[in-house]
């Protein structure tokens, strides 16, 4: 199921919400969140929010920033893309 989630993300090119992923995988949103956490822990997904937090600390306009960056966002890492490519190659073979 984790591979299915990773494949869904690696092979698409749009924004997914937790609720649409839950619908696509026929599981609950809670489970999708757990799987996202697992994939992040394993290095296949990366939380973008942490990077933003890091950036803000060195941003000269942080005191007048109109955006608060509160959304949680994850992207597939190169490790994640490599894995899905590898699986696809194996499947083709």
């Amino acid at each position, binding site marked *: 199921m*984790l591979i299915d989630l990773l494949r869904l993300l690696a092979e698409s090119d*749009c924004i997914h919400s937790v609720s649409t992923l839950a619908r696509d995988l026929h599981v609950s949103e809670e*489970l999708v969140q757990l799987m996202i956490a697992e994939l992040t822990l*394993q290095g296949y*997904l990366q939380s973008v929010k942490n990077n933003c937090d890091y*950036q803000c600390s060195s941003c000269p306009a942080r005191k*007048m920033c*109109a955006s608060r960056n509160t959304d949680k966002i994850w*992207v597939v890492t190169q490790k994640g893309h490599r894995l899905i490519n590898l699986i696809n190659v194996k499947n083709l073979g």
Partner: protein
Amino acid sequence: MTELKQNSSAHPRNSITVALAGQPNVGKSTVFNMLTGLNQHVGNWPGKTVEFKTGELVLNETLIHLVDLPGTYSLTANSEEERIARDFIIREKPDVVIAIVNAALLERNLYLVAELLALDVPIVLGLNMIDVANQQGLRVEVNVLEAALRVPVVPIIASKNQGLMELIEAAQNLAESQVPLAPNRPDIRPERRPVLEEIRTLITGQVPQPYHEDWVALKLLEGDSEVMEMVERAAPKAWPRIQALLSQHEDAILDITGGRYEWIARMVRAAVVRPRPGPIVLTDRLDRIATHPFWGLVLLLGILGMVFWLTYHAAMPIVEWLDSAIFIPLANVVSIALANAPLWFSSLVVDGLIGGVGTVLTFLPILIVFFTVLGILEDTGYLARAAYVMDRFMHWMGLHGRSFLPLFLGFGCNIPAVMGTRIIEDRRARLLTILLVPLVPCTARLAVVSFLTPAFFGTGAALVTWLLVIGNLTLLVLVGIAINRLLFKGAHTAFIMEIPLYHVPNARTIGLYVWQNILAFLKKAGVLIVLISTIVWAFSWLPDGNVNNSLLAGLGRWLEPLGRLMGLNDWRLIVALLTSFVAKENTIATLGVLYGMGEQSVGLAARVGATLTPAAGLSFLVVQMLFIPCVATIAVIKQETASWKWTAFSVVLLLAISLIVGVGVYQLAALLNWGM
């Protein structure tokens, strides 16, 4: 459910050991305390800093040694607590493990149960907090869950001492039962079974007691570092082959943990009835429109239009009042008061400071409206939907999915937007996003345009401002498409965005947000805009005190031929555009200085409006919207690109775009004989 009463006076005939396992905050300690009462011993696990709690109780003439294992999310050797918990179960072999789970968070808690089942130990599931689950509208079918798991399941409310007797009795019965265990365990994908079997064969007879070979093989495939070290020591001959297999199947962990999630999904699907609570239904209904490919866009444009409507109906009357009732009378009073002061000093205070900084301060109400709306949209959870809707347009541009995030930040301020491009790994994609950021109109740019548009377009100002923003974004898409065709090669990346539930905005949160941003604006006005207003005044005064002979007029007139192509026959407008390079608000400050405050009866916008035709006014607004970003943004572009070449390219690109579009708009109007 019956309440537990300890019976420590009975004389036990036999004894069993029961371990209590569970994730943190599931009520495990409450269960332990309720079951053992005062008969407990607290210490540390040998050689560890983790608390070790044991206790005793007598039930049906059986002495039960209860061990409270540390709270853990899983049984992988990620933490000391996890190692202690699994080592205790493997080495001490308790007769039964009671797994306490939170019924309201069953999916989260069942992961540990999935790992416990792999240890081949008798398990009783203590389904705690069923009252909380019921309050949340969740109904856990205990019998169904029991049948699905094929382990005893006992509903309990530990905090109310309910069901604990049944729980411990179930553990005792299981310990004394002779029936072989056959729980429903998570599966591993069929394609991984051969490798698991091969590893199992390689370690057969070599795994130290009391480790179970099936479990060790599974943990090896999962990449458990502690188990790998153990097997390397215990089976040195087989280790190279095992290692080779593990490196070939490095990703097997995803299949194993994925199998556990599939198992959890099956259990929950079978046993949990989940009526949809109100907020989710409301969110779903609203999202049918807000995230719809067409209606979502209509809503987004509608909201944008509403912002400008609100600006002109709520903020502009206050702006005009501040200008006519505060700053113009103030300039007149100060002018009279300084009648005997040197002329340059009077001019500096009246034209330079009141005319420059004062005028900028008048558009404070516009900023309050912008920040309030932005704060409300974010606090209600709408902004995440806007990002979702805009994703399609990012595809048209061929932009990397991550590029959307910094571009969206640009509406607040271009500086954090440029900084935000750090999330883009690909250098070319990052550079191109940086180039596009200044085409997103920031709050300061929007405030300037909102301030001036009514002077040219009267009641149509809201519509014109709205169209200007749409025009900027359309141009951004077109430039994005062009850049993509040349360099980007259509690379796309998906991402997950957690879209929050809608909720009623909190007035305090929004108030604080608006206040922080307004305070920052006032500080900027107090330092940077005062400085620039003074410099602009100085250059408009020198050398002889006549603005028409000033150094600034010389510069403005030198650029006038270019301005005439856009209908800008007044050099003061060109100078105002140039000073916006320092900060966007300086356009207003400069106009305030150059159009003078003394002895005026109408506001600045009206005075500027009187000098321009609507076509020239529109051209001026277009250039203002597209002009090169402020110097702070350019400094950040230099910092982030680490290249003077790209920084210069950004400035030249935007200068060219703004002038070409500005000239184009005016010439088109002339061709159509509109607003001339």
